[in-house]
């Protein structure tokens, strides 16, 4: 079993391999390239990511049947495949957005960290074994701690990095304790044999739920659910904006991939218990996220809280614990990632000219550069869940899943939160469109930024109108879990 490495096993980890190659190339380029041509590092990383995506799409498509590989470590199925693509896309967009971000884009280390974190995430999505899972989470988190604190001269960034590290360390520790308990009870570390092991050992329900609770703490940190969301606003505000973008999209998506797989694969027995916990967490996240976002003056903190509330909406799908639920979660993250990237893209572009993240500085952006304002309009409206944009479809699917699973009260709470969300998104748009600008010059948009923004806006629109292909992907990934 150890010796034989079949071509499918290689293809299963093709993205990881290619990313490693990219890391190597970046290292070498960082050493060889003279100071002034360091800029091309970003382009190299971007190229690497692009190539990885293309090859994965054409070569590494999983078959209809999901199978455990590498001795039960990885599970090559549609869920993993789609999330991998998602992470690659997010990383690509982040790299493009870092171009021109002064302290970051000339440094090779940054891109290495970025690529390693992406590798971690892809492994998280595919891991089917507790050990593998923990390793993947650490490979993702640690580079992110460093990236968050990358701007060493800016104490806000270091503070956010340090805070992120501390909070991560504690919660991962608790999670590890939970995992070990789980291993103790089940006797096996493989998720897919665990269910049989647990029922064989006839562990009393509450104890099992207790251990799951501890594990959920770890995932909760990763996904920034409400009881464990405290780190998010400070880190998002402090970290360099491209990193925040990456954090709020890719890392959150990875957290959800793992959460869904673990819950549905390992704990089908105590479904109703964890459904209750997740439902409560969803309700809290949505409400607290939206309500606090109302009062924010800083656009990054606003987007931070809004991303917490979006985590809450996605949790609705998880709480539904049905095939439609998982489909809605996957679709939700497709739409959410692209929209959040677009939103942060605009913030990044604006930051170069305005130099501040305060909302009132965005006054009259529509007069200064109508196209940028239009992009911001589409991004924020998609966040609010207004058709014809992706956010609307995502929200409808998530609410449908909740209603289908009988969680009608949760659906209504979600609906009310959508209204609060619409309020503060429209307030931002009002500032952009209505208030007179402080000065008249237009906001310059560099070519890479424009390209990245255009790609994300187009994806937002396509996700909102042409539903069929994406939905098919999401449905396939859901099927793979059941």
């Amino acid at each position: 079993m150890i010796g034989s490495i079949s071509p499918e096993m290689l293809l299963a980890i093709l993205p990881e391999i290619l990313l490693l190659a990219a890391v190597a190339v970046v290292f070498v380029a960082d050493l060889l390239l003279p100071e002034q041509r360091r800029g091309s590092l970003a382009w190299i990383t971007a190229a690497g990511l692009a190539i990885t995506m293309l090859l994965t799409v054409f070569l590494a498509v999983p078959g209809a049947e999901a199978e455990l590989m590498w001795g039960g470590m990885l599970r090559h199925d549609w869920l993993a495949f789609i999330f991998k693509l998602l992470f690659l896309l997010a990383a690509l967009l982040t790299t493009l957005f870092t171009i021109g971000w002064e302290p970051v884009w000339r440094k090779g280390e940054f891109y290495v960290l970025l690529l390693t974190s992406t590798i971690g995430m892809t492994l998280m999505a595919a891991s089917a074994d507790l050990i593998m899972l923990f390793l993947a989470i650490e490979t993702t988190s640690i580079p992110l701690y460093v990236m968050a604190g990358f701007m060493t001269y800016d104490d806000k960034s270091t503070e956010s990095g340090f805070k992120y590290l501390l909070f991560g360390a504690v919660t991962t520790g608790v999670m590890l304790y939970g995992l070990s308990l789980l291993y103790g009870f089940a006797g096996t570390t493989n998720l897919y044999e665990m269910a049989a092991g647990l029922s064989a050992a006839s562990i009393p329900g509450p104890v099992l739920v207790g251990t799951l609770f501890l594990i959920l703490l770890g995932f909760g940190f990763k996904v920034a659910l409400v009881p464990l969301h405290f780190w998010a606003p400070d880190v998002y505000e402090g970290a360099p904006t491209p990193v925040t973008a990456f954090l709020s999209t890719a890392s959150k998506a990875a957290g959800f991939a793992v959460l869904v797989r673990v819950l549905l694969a390992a704990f089908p027995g105590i479904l109703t218990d964890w459904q209750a916990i997740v439902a409560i967490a969803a309700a809290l996240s949505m409400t607290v996220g939206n309500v606090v976002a109302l009062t924010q003056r800083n656009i990054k903190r606003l987007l931070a809280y809004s991303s917490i509330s979006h985590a809450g909406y996605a949790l609705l799908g998880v709480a539904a614990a049905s095939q439609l639920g998982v489909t809605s979660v996957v679709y939700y993250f497709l739409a959410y990632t692209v929209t959040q990237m677009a939103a942060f893209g605009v913030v990044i572009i604006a930051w170069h000219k305005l130099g501040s993240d305060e909302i009132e500085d965005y006054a009259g952006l529509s007069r200064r550069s109508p196209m940028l304002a239009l992009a911001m309009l589409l991004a924020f409206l998609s966040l609010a869940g207004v058709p014809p944009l992706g956010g609307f479809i995502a929200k409808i699917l998530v609410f449908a899943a909740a209603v289908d699973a009988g969680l009608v009260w949760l659906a209504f709470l979600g609906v009310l939160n959508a209204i609060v969300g619409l309020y503060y998104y429209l307030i931002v748009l009002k500032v952009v469109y209505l208030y007179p600008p402080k000065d008249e010059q237009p906001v310059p948009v560099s070519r890479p930024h424009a390209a990245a923004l255009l790609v994300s806006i187009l994806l937002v629109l396509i996700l909102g109108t042409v539903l069929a292909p994406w939905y098919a992907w999401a449905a396939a990934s859901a099927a793979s879990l059941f």
Partner: protein
Amino acid sequence: MIPYILSAIVFLPILAGAVLLFLPARNRQLIYRFALAVAFLAFLLSIVVYFNFDAAGPRYQFIEKYDWLPALGISYHVGVDGITAPLVLLTGVVIFTGVIISQRIDERPREFFAFLFILASGVFGVFVSLDLFALFFFYEIAVFPMYLLIALWGWKQTREYAAMKLTLYLFIGSVVALVGALAMYFASGLGTFDMLALEGANFSAEFQNFWFPFVFFGFAVLGGIFPFHNWSPDGHVAAPTAVSMFHAGVLMKLGAFAALRVGIMLLPIGAHTHLPWIIILTLVNVVYGAFIAMVQTDFKYMIGFSSVSHMGLVTMGFATLNYNGLVGASVQMVSHGVMTALFFAVVGMVYDQAHTREIPKLGGLIRFMPFAAVAFIIAGLVSMGMPGFSGFIAEFPIFMGLWAGGYPLIAILAIISIAVTAAYILRAVSRVFFGDLPAELEGHMHDIRPSEKLALGVLCLIMITVGVYPNIILPMVQSGVNAVLALLGGA
């Protein structure tokens, strides 16, 4: 029958809006002419739909159906029946006249017309879509243009508050109804959002009784039903002329129509249990709105509340659930739509020149804008339910429906609103148009443009033709209503 006509009507405005955004901002004339051309085309198409609709033909005509998301049974399925054909024409007329009236918009006309057209295609979409998902899709497309139109071009004092209030009410209504729709989708077990199929789903009585209020009130919020009505006067007053014309004229009908389409037609048992107490709300709507309109000193507020009162009549017509009431309500939707559009157009013209809407500060305007004054008087007569005009043709069957539905007391109380409406309309007309010109208005009152006269003329023409020769709209409405009754009766 021209194929794809309905899709053309729905997507023409939104595409035109997109194109508009790329026209050079400086060239106001080009932008206005382009917008006018698009609006006229939409109006033409809606006329074609209206007159090609064969009353004796099948229930739905001009049907187009394409798969959108087969996995969930979502399809882009459009078709027009007896009740929606007149409403499509109404939308066409109001968008055409609205664009003419907003020649004077000088601040960023490009964005103004773009958002207006997105709004229009949203409304067209809802009227023609036969798929529940598509209905919500188009219903909520109207959310953000409505906010931006009012917030950016509205009346300085209250535009931000009114825009936000209006959009939130509209959004609350739609999402609440959305949850209801999702519940219906799942409970039906048919796995499709197609309303024609859902009509046959005959849900359990208990399910219908639980979900009907959510769906009905979700949509009726936009129809201005009593407890949720106060966004509409604020919204109308703050909105620029064309938007308040479009909003009061068409969007409120959207709410009432959707309440009928999704609420009453898909949950008939729920309708039978809940509408008897809802009719009391509509009664309050009618009488309460009329009385408040009487005490308003602001010209636009008065018309805002008068449209609340008349919309109450529409929902009351639906609530009677019998033949007369439904026929009356459907005709009232068209008649009130045209009437309120004309009201707001004229008020807009008055405001553009007099820069005040306080009735006491206005007077003697008939000398300057006789055509607008006559048009306003005709609209006033329609609002009074004066026979010989479309108002009477619409309101009379509604009251007959009340009698037939066994609500004599409600009919008696509701009829008071007619006298009150007559009172405040006459008072306003005599003070604004016939009084003596106040000093400060001396210099700058002048007649309206010929194109604006054309717009007002078209609106008056519709009101008078429907009033004099009701059979131009009735056979169509009757066929639509019979289909609804079949559903109601059947359940």
